[in-house]
């Protein structure tokens, strides 16, 4: 089997769908769109098995040269190693489920084919990203997913707001990409190649630990990652990206694309290991982001925005893990997060459809009995997100991060505290949402029940969100390390400084406690004492704070004032091109000269004679001047 087939199949189906356009029937589109991903998933599984059977020897396929110029050479090389396999499996399987879900969700959409074309294109690009053996191909996938994200956020193009959100997403991630591109130039300059193994191998020869240059490179790569993964300070695009159809939010803006940054850093972990400073910054960014996003999620009214902020927050955890050197923990959290966040989004989508495209949680309520299936899967998703101890995958993955944020070599007690605070917030906002939607009085009538094509993927994901956690259990609970072992050849094991079982217990207990208390608070807030809470919430200071948080800590405004508005203002006032006025001025000057001179052509004979005399005087004056003066 050729690894290259995995991204190729979605690409081909995307092309087919684009070219076919109106000729495909709806069924044809569904089959092509979902089938191709399914096929890719099957191939991925086969290759994964092959791979594990091969003794985990990375499979590299050279699918052709791309460009070669002046010592720079790169090709379409696809690589399957432990890390890629994890990502490819998640992408294809979750992607397939979401496609199936989407075939139901988007059933009434006139641009059905376009939707699937873009979705398939996205999957292809994402697979390219995670399978690329060189950074340029990775960059191709990187930009490709950005494009698809743009296309899909703005899928309903008639509303200018959607277009705005799409452009915002593209441009903001592009800022990060710019940093990444520069990192690429630097890497090529110093290591002479863009092949990932080559870079990783050369880097240790070229740089010593803490070398200034490698720190810069790592930070630039981090910049790229931060943009794609919606971390501070480029997190602002993700909440707006919810303008796209819900399956898009599930696939791109929760499960896969936004974790590309995590993948990138994990992929280039050697570089980050050489630059501890950059790694620390990664951790700090993750920690700060997870808290800020948590607070923002707490006060949202739009169900998808809650999930969006929660995504930002959860990826913050992954960054925290990466920053602490807990590579496999980050990837593990990516896997579980992909499951439960896709689940949550799709369940939310089901609710939204059921309520006739109502997204405001305060207009929902009491859905517990109306949407039984959705209620249960949503509950499982929320539990996993909030990390309810022992039974949810989210608990195991997040708990590992929380523990390692203190104990790992790159850890710090501050990071740990932040992670704990995040756990509390997660519990709170998750269940605030949950209670708002499913409890209380019914405010909007349920429109229709979700069909099977939507529900079956939800059930599967619900199962995965629960059982996926058991492949990696902490020391305290059985010490299963299937997952980290799997990644061992690619990602080094975390070096733990404080190996104390008691401490680990304490940390786990604390985090579990905080998560549960968060849930309790949410319950008290939403279900038990809505009145008292609302009095509290109406206080001016709190009102302001809520607004502030719900606007995402006013980062949008900050960038507006600092960058966007000056740029737009400058370009607007310069619309006529200042430099052009220079030339226009020159033209006007010429005309002025003409007018002045034209006046001398008065037609008066006497004046003409005078000019001759003036000429004579001038000539003689020049003579005298040149000779005697």
């Amino acid at each position: 089997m050729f690894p290259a087939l995995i991204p190729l199949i979605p690409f081909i189906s995307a092309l087919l769908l684009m070219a076919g356009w109106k000729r495909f029937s709806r069924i044809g589109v569904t089959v092509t769109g979902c089938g191709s991903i399914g096929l890719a998933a099957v191939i991925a599984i086969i290759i994964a098995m092959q791979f594990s059977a091969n003794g985990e020897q990375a499979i590299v396929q050279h699918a052709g040269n791309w460009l070669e110029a002046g010592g720079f050479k790169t090709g379409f090389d696809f690589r399957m190693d432990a890390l890629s396999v994890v990502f490819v499996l998640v992408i294809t399987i979750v992607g397939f489920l979401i496609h199936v879900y989407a075939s139901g969700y988007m059933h009434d959409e006139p641009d059905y084919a376009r939707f699937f074309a873009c979705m398939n294109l996205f999957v292809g690009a994402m697979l390219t990203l995670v399978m690329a053996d060189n950074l340029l191909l990775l960059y191709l996938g990187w930009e490709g997913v950005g494009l698809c994200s743009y296309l899909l956020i703005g899928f309903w193009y008639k509303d200018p707001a959607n277009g705005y959100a799409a452009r915002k997403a593209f441009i903001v991630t592009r800022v990060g990409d710019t940093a990444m591109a520069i990192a690429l130039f630097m890497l090529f300059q110093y290591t002479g190649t863009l092949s990932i193994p080559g870079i990783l191998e050369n880097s240790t020869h070229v740089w010593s630990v803490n070398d200034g240059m490698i720190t810069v490179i790592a930070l630039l790569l981090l910049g790229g990652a931060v943009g794609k993964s919606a971390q501070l300070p480029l997190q602002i695009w993700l909440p707006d990206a919810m303008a796209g159809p819900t399956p898009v939010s599930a696939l791109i803006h929760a499960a896969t694309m936004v974790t590309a940054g995590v993948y990138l850093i994990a992929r280039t972990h050697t570089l980050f290991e050489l630059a501890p400073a950059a790694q620390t910054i990664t951790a700090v960014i993750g920690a700060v982001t997870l808290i800020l996003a948590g607070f923002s999620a707490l006060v949202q009214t739009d169900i998808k925005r809650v999930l969006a902020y929660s995504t930002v927050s959860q990826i913050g955890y992954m960054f925290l893990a990466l920053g602490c050197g807990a590579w496999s923990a980050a990837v593990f959290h990516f896997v579980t997060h992909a499951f439960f966040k896709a689940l949550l989004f799709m369940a939310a989508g089901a609710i939204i459809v059921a309520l006739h495209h109502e997204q405001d949680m305060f207009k929902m309520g009491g859905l517990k009995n109306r949407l039984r299936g959705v209620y249960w899967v949503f509950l499982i998703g929320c539990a996993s997100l909030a990390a309810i101890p022992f039974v949810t995958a989210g608990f195991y993955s997040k708990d590992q991060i929380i523990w390692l944020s203190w104990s790992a070599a790159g850890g710090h007690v501050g990071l740990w505290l932040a992670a704990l605070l995040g756990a509390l917030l997660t519990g709170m906002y998750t269940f605030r949402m949950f209670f708002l939607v499913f409890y209380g009085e019914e405010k909007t009538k349920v429109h229709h029940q979700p069909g099977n094509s939507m529900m079956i993927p939800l059930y599967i994901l619900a199962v995965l969100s629960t059982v996926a956690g058991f492949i990696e259990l902490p020391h305290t609970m059985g010490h299963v390390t299937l997952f980290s072992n799997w990644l061992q050849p690619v990602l080094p094991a975390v070096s733990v400084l404080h190996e104390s079982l008691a401490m680990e217990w304490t940390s786990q207990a604390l985090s579990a406690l905080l998560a549960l208390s968060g849930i309790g608070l949410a319950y008290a807030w939403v279900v038990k004492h809505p009145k008292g809470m609302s009095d509290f919430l109406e206080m001016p200071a709190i009102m302001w704070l809520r607004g502030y948080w719900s606007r995402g800590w006013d980062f949008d405004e900050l960038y507006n004032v600092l960058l966007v508005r000056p740029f737009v203002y400058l370009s607007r006032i310069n619309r006529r091109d200042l430099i052009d006025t220079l030339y226009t001025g020159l033209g006007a000057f010429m005309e002025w000269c003409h007018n002045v001179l034209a006046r001398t052509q008065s037609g008066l004979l006497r004046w003409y004679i005078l000019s001759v005399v003036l000429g004579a005087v001038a000539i003689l004056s020049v003579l005298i001047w040149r000779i005697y003066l």
Partner: protein
Amino acid sequence: MILLVLILVLFGAALLSWVAGVKSHAASRWIALCSLLVNLGIITGIWLEHTHSNSRWWYQFRMDWVPHFGISLHLAMDGLSMLMLALTFFLGALAVLISWKEIQNRVGFFHFNLLFVLCGITGVFLTMDLFLFYFFWEMMLIPMYFLIGIWGHEHREYAANKFFLFTQAGGLLMLLAILGLYFVHKANTNVYTFNYFELLNTPMTPFMERWLMLGFLIAFLVKLPAVPFHTWLPDAHTEAPTAGSVVLAGLLLKTGAYGILRFVLPLFPIAAADIAPVAMLLGVAGILYGGMLAYAQTDLKRLIAYTSVSHMGFVLLGAFAFNEIAYQGVVMQMITHGISTGALFIIAGALYERIHTRNLRQMGGLWLRLPMMGSAAMIFVMASLGLPGLGNFVAEFLVLLGSWQASHVFTILATIGLVVATAYSLRIMQKVFFGPCDRQYAMPDLNGRELVIIIALVIVICWLGFHPQPVLNTSQNIDYVIR
């Protein structure tokens, strides 16, 4: 000899299509199209024949013209010329095709001018005699002037005049420099010649070299166009008919870039190296300033025109980076910019045919009516913002990768230009195809002819994006200047 044929075919066809145009419009169009296809065929044949040739010069042709001054009819072709000619004939043929319906007045004269411009451009890309170069350089202006001035939009005369004056001013400076070089060479060797090969490696004082180089450079900067000589371009592009815009953006600007690669760098290596920081600065300024202006425009064609300023900044940046990667990127950029911007102009022209406005404020939501055109536009908008997988990315990446070796600061600024490119490119899509649509009437999507054009362009841009190696191999055969 085959080189002369390339020029003569166009010249003959120009006259013929004028004459034929009096009787039948269709005949005129077909003659023009066929002549360009014939040339394209010849060029393709040459390319295939020389894919693996390592010789520097593929063809040479030399005949005395004005021996009194050492002027000869000296044509030669190497990889760079070949690539540029391939682009010329390809875009030329498309230009004829897009004018099929758009131009209904004075058809014969239109094709005469179009072919005459292409003839001049072909000459520029082939000639190895500096006088002849200047001759062709100027020769292509007049028909271009007519193309803009007769078949253009509302302010065509203003635009045509501006175009003409700017390029002439630059051209005259170049003439001074050419003659300066001529006499410097004479002083050294006592031989009067305009021959490029003999003038290479002419020893001269640094002072002289700097000024002569500036003469050439300014002419090419005006044509390129680089900030601050760019202001003719938006007007000319905006007012020109679609074919004119395509030829302008796709080909005429390339003559400037070609001139820098062919003449400025090899003839004056030291002075060029000295001026490199300034040139790169201008390139970066073009990238950012052009992008900013593009963002602010409300006229679709004007917007696209400013993107040209921005994109050609990369050419300048790369040309003065003095390394092979950047150089190859520049060649790629010349080709891909021709394709992508040409395509955008074609789309703008097709839109204009349908809705009779270029004002972005009066557009919106057209995807609903014109999904195919929208998809095509999307592809080229993405090309213009440098999406990997399309040709422009390869070009820009190579340029930046190369220029990074030369200057970190400029490269960083130019890379930031990519963000600006995203902003203005997406604005096109947003304003034209997305958003609410208040047009009730139906309008036809791309018809067969337009589809052929667009598909040809899409294929080429994708081919360049995924498999640029043939082009890179070809342009590798050129001597480039490495500091």
